[in-house]
């Protein structure tokens, strides 16, 4: 059946035909090779007597690195699979073909995952090298790959399901990440600090049945939806009648007249704009930003608000010293949600064919880019700062924190700068790309490169080389997570006593001797500024002046 699945055949042809994907695979394996080489234990003469610890940590690095990769890349490949058909208006053609919904689903899923699984498998020889080093059981490797493949399947299926539910790929992508991230954290938690027997139990007895159950459930639901699609017609996109939608909405309702909603969604105009208004900005804020799927926004807000309540409780009552981690949660939220608004802002004008209308007016490229930046920055900042409410509460209620009130200001500054950076990166990618999906994936990749990869590299180098912490901390100055963790907080936790003194003081960055957060607070705004100047320049060259094929 699979060999005759035309959906799979077409997608695979398009995906694997490009030499780019092959190149990417090559680079990936080369990168892994470099990691192994760098981490290869020094005592090469006595290969067999290598400490089990080194091999173990190399193995874990591989496993978690690939696990994170899957969690990030699976949605990028799969979240566009069905919503992309809707956007290209080929959805109805596909559904009206004699293909079974299950065939469509399987075709989409496999085509999205084939490449990813190929990537994972290409790392197998290097993993086996770790096995040769000793200290790792073959069963551990088998277990690791079992988890990786299960994760790829589950995350891919979740993304395809989101893709079937949303009209826009960007919405599908963000919701996929929101669902997958907690799942991934749970798996990491279950496999990390546990005895080998527990790990085996989790990997062999717990995960597979759970995954199968999730797969079946999701597959049935999605197939049903494909069989009787409620979103066909009007080109897969119903006319948004906001008033009507609000009446039917369950859960959070965006009420444009009330605080705090009016901060990010100002009320609609009842009369003409005043003179001197930037029309693009006005349009974005009052009409457009929420029309692209209020459903998604509600989901995002609800999920993160819901999550923030237990997190706040933990922070307030059990672990006040974890304040920096709560800030990290707010930053992750911004990392996920910030690009949604900016990464589509230019590509969507093109995709919806309004760009040529906009470009033939008297608006200057700077005005257009500025309006896009302000609108998306405003929404992303307001939504993110809604989550800092808990932080403020902690600083009011907890005595230790009260006395170090200035650290709150640093945290808030870090969050604000991060909002600016995520939005700017999104806008930059939007000016570079032709499609919103591409822009979003590119944005997430760039942000990971700035925010997360440096921390991984730093950890790796700390474990496997002798370079000093000050030198290494210079690597992480682009990461708000590193910045938040470097803020010096002395808090006693109710049951553990004073912990901060036991923690080593955060290192100062090598050449200038500043703490990481200070460097980040200087570097972040400069980066955002540079990105926006480049965005305006690219937009001018690419769209406004050259009018590249619209």
């Amino acid at each position, binding site marked *: 059946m699979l060999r005759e699945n035309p959906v799979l055949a077409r997608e695979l042809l398009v995906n694997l035909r490009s030499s780019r994907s092959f190149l990417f695979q090559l680079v990936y394996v080369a990168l892994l090779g470099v990691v192994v080489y760098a981490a290869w234990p020094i005592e090469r003469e006595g290969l067999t007597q290598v400490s089990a610890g080194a091999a173990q940590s190399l193995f874990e690095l591989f496993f978690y690195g690939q696990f994170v990769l899957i969690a990030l890349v699976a949605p990028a490949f799969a979240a566009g699979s069905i919503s992309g058909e809707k956007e290209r208006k080929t959805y109805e053609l596909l559904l009206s073909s004699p293909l079974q919904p299950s065939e469509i689903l399987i075709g989409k899923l496999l085509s999205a995952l084939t490449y990813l699984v190929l990537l994972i498998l290409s790392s197998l020889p290097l993993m086996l090298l770790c096995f040769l080093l000793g200290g790792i059981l073959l069963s551990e490797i088998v277990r690791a790959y079992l988890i990786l493949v299960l994760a790829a399947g589950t995350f891919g299926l979740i993304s395809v399901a989101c893709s079937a539910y949303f009209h826009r790929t960007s919405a599908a992508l963000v919701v996929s990440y929101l669902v997958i991230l907690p799942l991934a954290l749970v798996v990491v938690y279950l496999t990390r600090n546990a005895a080998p027997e527990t790990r085996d139990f989790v990997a062999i007895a717990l995960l597979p049945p759970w995954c199968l159950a999730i797969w079946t459930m999701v597959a049935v639901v999605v197939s049903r939806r494909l069989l009787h699609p409620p979103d066909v017609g009007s080109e897969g996109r119903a*006319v948004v009648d906001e008033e009507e939608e609000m009446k039917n909405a369950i859960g959070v309702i965006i009420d444009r007249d009330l605080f705090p909603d009016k901060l990010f969604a100002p009320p609609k105009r009842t009369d003409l704009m005043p003179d001197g208004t930037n029309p693009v900005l006005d349009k974005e804020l009052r009409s457009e930003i929420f029309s692209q799927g209020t459903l998604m926004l509600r989901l995002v807000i609800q999920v993160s608000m819901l999550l923030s309540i237990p997190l706040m409780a933990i922070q307030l009552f059990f672990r006040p010293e974890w304040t920096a981690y709560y800030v990290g949660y707010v930053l992750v939220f911004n990392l996920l949600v910030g690009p949604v608004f900016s990464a589509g802002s230019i590509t969507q004008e093109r995709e919806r064919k309004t760009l040529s209308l906009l470009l033939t007016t008297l608006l200057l490229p700077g005005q257009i880019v500025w309006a896009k930046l302000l609108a998306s920055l405003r929404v992303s900042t307001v939504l993110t700062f809604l989550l800092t409410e808990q932080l403020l509460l902690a600083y009011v209620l907890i005595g230790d924190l009260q006395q170090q009130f200035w650290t709150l200001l640093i945290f808030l500054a870090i969050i604000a700068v991060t909002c600016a950076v995520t939005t700017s990166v999104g806008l930059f990618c939007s000016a570079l790309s032709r499609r919103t999906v591409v822009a979003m994936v590119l944005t997430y990749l760039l942000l990971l490169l700035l925010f997360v990869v440096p921390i991984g590299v730093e950890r790796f180098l700390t474990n496997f080389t002798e370079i000093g912490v000050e030198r290494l901390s210079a690597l992480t100055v682009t990461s708000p997570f590193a910045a938040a963790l470097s803020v010096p907080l002395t808090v006693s936790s109710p049951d553990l006593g004073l912990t901060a003194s036991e923690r080593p003081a955060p290192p100062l960055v090598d050449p200038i001797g500043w703490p990481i957060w200070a460097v980040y607070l200087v570097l972040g705004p400069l980066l955002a500024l540079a990105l926006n100047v480049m965005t305006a320049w690219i937009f001018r060259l690419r769209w406004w002046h050259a009018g590249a094929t619209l």
Partner: protein
Amino acid sequence: MIEVRNFTKRYGDFLAVDDLSFTIPEGEIFGFIGPNGAGKSTTIRFLATLLQPTSGSAYVCGHSVVHDPMAVRRVIGFMPDDFGVYDGMKVWEFLDFFAVAYQIPRAYRKKIIGEVLELLDLTSKRDDYVNGLSRGMKQRLCLGKTLVHNPPVLILDEPASGLDPRARVEIKSLLTELRAMKKTILISSHILSELADFCTTIGIIERGRLLAAGSIQEIQKQLRTHRVLKVGLVGEDVPRALAMLRAEPAVQHVESYDHTITCEFQGEDGDKARLLHRLIAAGVSVHTFTEVELSLEEVFMMITKGVVN
């Protein structure tokens, strides 16, 4: 008013428009006609300052499209062939958006938006969401968008494509009103008859080349070498006339039906008169001798078949 000089556009190796030149004087309605893929939209996007030419230049109201795009944007109203509308916007907001984008002061905007809605017959839709409008209404709304800054030149790319007959008629009557407003209009279509009624001049483009340009009469004159004659005869003269005509070197494709002969004739008016003279001198009783007025569609078909070359 609009002048295109040696415009050439290549996409990679593909020559989309080849050395195109034409002029449209003030107040004219220029119909730009050609089959799909002929290069109409490419030329129009160039004129609308959205495309860099491979070579060549163009001027609208004396402003260079390449060097002074802002000045050109000020004087043109542009309607692309394939356009979208914004989500969550009402009809009046849509017009207000573009009016602000064209820097029209608020004091005028109210009046202008009212007038445009009136002209487009969309007053009753003022508070509807734009993405809920039917296709025909969207086209009209976009046409309205091109009018908010009252430009002297309108550049419309296939404004009536994909519409049902009624919506077509509505667009046509709108264009007739615009002509009465003394606007210079460039309008493209792949259907000739759509433009025939109200265009003062037409240009026919195929595979990136302008095959003919001018008034419809002029274009027919350019086709002088391919005139179709209709000869009506009395009684038994038909076979003799057929034989005579077939022997003429300037006459081809002779066909007879009942007592009427049609044939293609190459030559000037004088040659035509001499042919008639010879027929009569040979004693053929001719009662009708006329040149068939080719319909625009037939002209179009002949030209785009490459008959001219």
